[in-house]
């Protein structure tokens, strides 16, 4: 079901053309990511989709009554504590006070943030403050979740929770629109990936070959491959993704044990 339609959207700041005649339709339950270099127009596009920025030309049409939740790139501090802020956002979402309180406690625990909920937001570090920005967007279920560089400054564990929660929402038919530089986040959330080149929205083609790191355990007396290097009590092997698919079955059948595997971008 179509919920947002961009019709010939153009945006320029002074002489700089940021978005150039963009036509695009977004459907309920879709997960779309926008990647590209800084200043290419990703955040502007998200704000136009949400109706927060007026396009210079064209228009963004939204289905009536859509509830947007927005995780900004830089979440600003306010003079209140994180709990007070989140409580107010929950109440604005229509939650009862006790219901919002329980949700804050649960999300605080999920994001390893429980002990800092009663600290004034002005005293929180950048990464912790960003968690407040993330949690406020998960207080209730929106129709559209906008994530603008959502993981900036956050630890890996919280990033995993963010991915999990976002995919849970997608499972509930929430439309996810993400602007992000981290490829592992994009891969874990988005079904379609676009980039903005010279103001135009284009399908994203990842450049180059992806490298994988495989962690293997020597089950006993096996001779290490020439490309393997010692990695604590294990061995590490770096290879192209396609090559890994080819050589791994052979290594495992010879008695090597797989102890870990990750993409280079995740490391």
């Amino acid at each position, binding site marked *: 079901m179509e919920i947002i339609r961009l019709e010939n959207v153009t945006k320029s700041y002074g002489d700089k053309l940021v978005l150039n005649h963009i036509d695009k339709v977004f459907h309920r339950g879709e997960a779309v990511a926008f990647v590209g270099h800084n200043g290419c127009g990703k955040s502007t596009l998200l*704000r136009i989709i*949400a*109706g*927060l*920025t*007026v396009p210079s030309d064209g228009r963004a049409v939204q289905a009536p*009554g*859509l*509830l*947007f*939740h*927005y995780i*900004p790139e*830089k*979440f*600003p501090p*306010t*003079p*209140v504590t994180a709990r*007070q802020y989140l409580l*107010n*956002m929950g*109440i*604005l*979402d229509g939650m009862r006070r006790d219901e919002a309180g329980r949700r804050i406690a649960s999300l605080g625990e999920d994001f390893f943030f429980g002990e800092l909920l009663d600290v004034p937001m002005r005293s929180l570090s950048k990464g912790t403050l960003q968690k407040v920005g993330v949690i*406020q967007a998960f207080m209730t279920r929106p129709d559209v979740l906008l994530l603008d560089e959502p993981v900036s400054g956050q630890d890996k564990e919280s990033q995993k929770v963010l991915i999990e929660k976002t995919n849970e929402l997608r499972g509930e038919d929430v439309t996810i629109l993400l602007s992000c530089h981290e490829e592992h986040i994009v891969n874990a959330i988005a079904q379609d990936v676009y980039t903005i080149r010279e103001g135009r929205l284009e399908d994203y083609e990842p450049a180059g070959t992806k490298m994988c790191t495989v962690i293997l355990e020597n089950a006993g007396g096996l001779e290490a491959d020439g490309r393997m290097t010692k990695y604590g009590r294990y061995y590490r092997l770096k290879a192209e993704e396609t090559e890994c698919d080819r050589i791994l079955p052979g290594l495992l059948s010879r008695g090597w044990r797989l102890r870990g595997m990750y993409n280079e971008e995740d490391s």
Partner: protein
Amino acid sequence: MKKIAELTRYGLHIYFKGNKFIMPLVVIIAYQYTMYTIMPVGIVDSFVMASYLVFFVLVWAGLSVSADENPVMEQIQLLRVRSSLCYYISRSIILAMLGLLVSAVCVLFPVIQNVLNHKGLFLRPLTAYDVLNAFILVAGCSFAGGALGSLLHPRVMEDRKLAVVLTVLLSVLTVVRTGLVQEIPFLKYVAWILPPVDRIAYIYGNVDEFRILQTGLIFMALVGYGAVLTVIKSCICQKRKF
């Protein structure tokens, strides 16, 4: 309605958790002590002066409330409430409530002082009618002041230095409007755009009694001007967005 109430409550909570209210509060307290430690004072004169003070204090508060609005926080709230109208009404109510609070302080302080001084603070006995008129005048000035102070919101004028200078200029012109028009008559063609705060001194400058009809008319004019300024600011913010 519930959303407006929640937005207003949250906005007031943020304002009082910050430190922007401290200096205006100090100014109000200093004024009250300075004004009402020398006895006796004229009832009408002192409340007319209080009206001017409250006007300037609320211009100050309006400026600081607007300047404190973070665009990201605004965006999150606007998306949540799904109604720009609710959001902008709540911003106006926040200033109106601050104005009522300041008005109450400025009217009640001399009333209490008068009681503590065995009803000898004023040149003649203070009546409930005087208090009512004073509160209406001061509240009207507070609303017009808040609206004028928040007119040049960061989304209306990005250059904050210029916005502060222009706001101060406009508020000073507002209180000297009549005198200025007497000196330079052709200014009357543009002076009408400023709130009629100076009419209070013009009407009550040489009298010792309030007249509720005059007070009511000035109040309505001040609230009307304030409402127009608020609508202008909100429309510009809504048109420009972020």
